[in-house]
């Protein structure tokens, strides 16, 4: 589905991503792990169009999409969430979701003045869709709350909810479990596998929570210093000496 080839990203003197190549196969939940500063989020930002790569190609459904702006990535079905929740703080939870669906007639200002009927009809569909997503996330009761007032975990759920508001194909989750209590992490794991089964999303997940990675992801790609260290199932990755050294913890220490 998506192939990254020889991707490089340079920030001044810092090479955040170095000749990075990997594949995300359709229908998988691919994990992306590695120490801080390994270039995981930078890679995400390039796939999602927030950053243009210095060089390299991102082939998505047979087309090189490297360097396209974010909103065009979105319209191709690549949807991302943020490591630090990026909610629209002063808008209600429901509005946060309702803003997402593409090509709403009411987004053209003149339609609201000259064709309010079409706007209203679509608006009801969008609202129903948002309410369904809120139910799925079990935060319906927060519907009219300002998103800025939510707890960290609830904001994470809202991030996930945004991916449900469009016909996503590839969903990039940046640390969906970070700063979330263990019970909620289990719920999020459940939700992700449910979304994959019901909606056929392909996922790519950055995460430091190895339980989440172990229970969801196959394959797991390990990045270190901007490049792919190894790739395989979680068990293979765990057995890899280089990975233990770079990330999961050296031999003389306790198990992770």
């Amino acid at each position, binding site marked *: 589905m998506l192939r990254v080839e020889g991707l490089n990203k340079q920030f001044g003197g810092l090479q955040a991503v170095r000749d990075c190549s990997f594949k995300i196969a359709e229908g998988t939940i691919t994990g992306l792990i590695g120490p801080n500063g390994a270039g995981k989020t930078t890679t995400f930002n390039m796939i999602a169009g927030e950053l243009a790569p210095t060089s390299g190609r991102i082939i998505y459904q047979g087309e090189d999409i490297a360097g396209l702006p*974010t909103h065009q990535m979105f319209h191709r079905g690549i949807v991302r969430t943020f490591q630090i929740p990026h909610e629209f703080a002063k808008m209600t939870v429901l509005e946060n979701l309702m803003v997402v669906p593409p090509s709403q007639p009411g*987004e053209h200002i003149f339609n609201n003045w000259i064709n309010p009927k079409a706007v209203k009809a679509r608006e*009801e569909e969008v*609202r129903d869709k948002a309410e369904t997503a809120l139910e799925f996330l*079990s935060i319906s009761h927060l519907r009219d709350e300002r998103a800025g007032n939510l707890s960290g975990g609830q904001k994470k759920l809202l991030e996930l909810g945004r991916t449900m508001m469009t016909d996503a194909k590839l969903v990039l989750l940046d640390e969906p479990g970070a700063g979330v209590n263990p019970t909620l992490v289990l719920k999020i794991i459940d939700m992700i596998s449910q979304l994959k089964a019901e909606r056929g999303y392909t996922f790519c997940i950055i995460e430091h929570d190895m339980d989440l990675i172990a229970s969801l992801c196959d394959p797991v790609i390990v990045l270190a210093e901007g490049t792919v260290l190894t790739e395989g199932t979680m068990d293979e990755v765990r057995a890899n000496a280089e990975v233990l050294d770079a990330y999961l913890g050296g031999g003389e220490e306790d198990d992770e």
Partner: protein
Amino acid sequence: MDALYGYMLYGISLATMGGIYAVLTLGLNVQWGFAGLFNAGIAGFFGIGAYTTAILTTSATHRHIGGFEMPYIVGFLAAMLICGVIAYLVGKVCLRLRSDYLAIATIGIAEIFRLILKNETWATNGPRGVSEIPKPFEHWPEPWNQFGFLLLVLVVVAIVYVLVEVARKSPWGRVMTAIRENEPSAKAAGKNVENFRMEGFVIGCMIMALAGALMAHYLKFVDPNATDPLLATFLVWVMLIVGGSANNKGAILGAFLMWVVWSATEIVTSRLPDELAIRAAYIRIFLIGLMLQIFLQKFPQGILPEKRPDVAKSNGNAETKMAD
């Protein structure tokens, strides 16, 4: 009786100016309140509107270009259209800038407009300005002519308010707010942020031009002082902040309220002893600044804070049936 009549006329002029400022403040609200665009060059767009209609509707003269004796409606529409085009060009250059830099750039652009209006004498009659601008209802007997114009201004305020309020509650307004709240996230939600910001900027500037056109017809005269940043930029910002940004009712309330306050400071400072009267202009600005401080202490979000539109509950699947 005469005194009473005088007070009434004063009241009408207060309300008329308040109404013109209300239009101006609604324009700024579209830009700052909805989209978070820091336009510090309101005066420039206001001036373009005033001059456009002035040049189109005056009768033939050799003092400046134009004198086409066009009907008022043409003057108003042309003011908005021309300002819209100019705003688009300005936006192309400036809108990629982040908020504080956008403010600096728009100040500069307003100054450029002001200097053009002042120095291109062949077109604008330079510092002497454009005079003998026709005024709607001016042939009606006093005070009905004043009432007529006030009514026109209030109708314009009402129309602009309705259009802008519909836009605020619409999906368009929702996207604007999303961009204001979190730009990366709005992009990640597939919104073409640059286009939306441009729309907000152009529409806001067109509304400002409409206010400028009203002012030109009201005063029957326009000169480069119309683009004085104190009266046409700073005061408008104070009005929006005091009234409540992102709230259209607040914008209108703030405009009328601060115009009354501004006018009242004139009365107060005119009673000062002579040696202070010279400095009265500065005292007025100081008083406005003080008012702003007091209001912001009491109403940090403005008198009428932002309210999100109600989204009706759907009737169907209201029960939560999510199995955890």
